[in-house]
């Protein structure tokens, strides 16, 4: 099976994640949408690895997973800190830095 359907699926998932980041208000859901985008790019990387016949794409996907894990840990800690001070996980509430 050619790689194109997989890449198209990955593009669709990436777009959905993108729209989610732009529209959702809850910081945790926004974070989940970022994870969805990372996962979509992983799918494309794995597909390219299969099409090209070498494992470099899979190694890249592996690195994306590692970075995503680190990112989630720090991001959720930030959300917890914001929630502790503002009692809300909405991205609209944390606008104090603006002023």
């Amino acid at each position, binding site marked *: 099976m050619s790689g194109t359907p997989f890449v198209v699926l990955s*593009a669709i998932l990436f777009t959905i994640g993108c729209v989610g980041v732009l529209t959702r208000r809850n910081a945790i859901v926004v974070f989940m949408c970022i994870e969805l985008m990372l996962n979509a790019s992983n799918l494309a990387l794995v597909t390219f690895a299969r099409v090209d016949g070498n494992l470099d794409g899979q190694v890249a996907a592996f690195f994306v997973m590692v970075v995503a894990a680190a990112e989630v840990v720090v991001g959720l*800690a930030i959300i917890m800190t914001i929630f502790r001070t503002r009692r809300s996980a909405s991205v609209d509430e944390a606008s104090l830095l603006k002023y």
Partner: protein
Amino acid sequence: MVAFWILSPIMVAAALGLLFARKAVHAALLLAVVMICLSVLYLVQNAPFLFVVQIIVYTGAILMLFLFVLMLVGVDASDSVVETIRGQRLMATVAGLALGLLLVLGIGQVSLGAVTGLSQANADGNVQGLAQLLFSRYVFAFEATSALLITAAIGAMVLAHRERLTPKLTQADRAAQRMRAYAEHGTHPGPLPSPGVYARHNAVDTPALLPDGSPAETSVSRMFTVRGTIRPASASDVRMLTASVGDAATTDQERQGER
């Protein structure tokens, strides 16, 4: 490639659900569906190592972390539907659709070429092949990720750390507090009654019944009272209880009459 055509509609539907789910917990579960389907697609594409890592790291660790934080933040914190910037949602949707159209059309235009397949690259086994790449060509990137992970762990500890402002209560302090409350207000110093005693269920949201059939308020967590999810005992339960525990001959009405 039956797996792809079965899983891709499920994945797209679950991902769309992520956009429309009002509750964050539902969004997390839908994301889990997407991730598990993705791992199967990795397996289909000759990536067994990534299949396992996807399930363990993403579905197992990262999503559980998400759910953990969701529970800490409060499950009831559902999304507000109020737009803070007017027309933002519409514009975001239009921009997203444009991006998706651009990507899909662009991918449709290019030809990825003939599929080489991984049978040669995976000849020594997928894990061995990946290890060979990781520890030769990508060894510096690999070392850098270890530094990144340590930085992330320390960063999370620093961010989540909170200085204690009041001294920690020891067990002796708590005992003294309880006895003081008993001396001053007559509060019972022993443990609170357990839920469900004499009631039909012993679930944590069912209050215990006192001998006269009234619920014991202290036997259920205060949270249930606040949320209003307490399951009161049915009238027949109360009648049965007063018949067996209280004076067998007197029911509630008779007692009322006596007074």
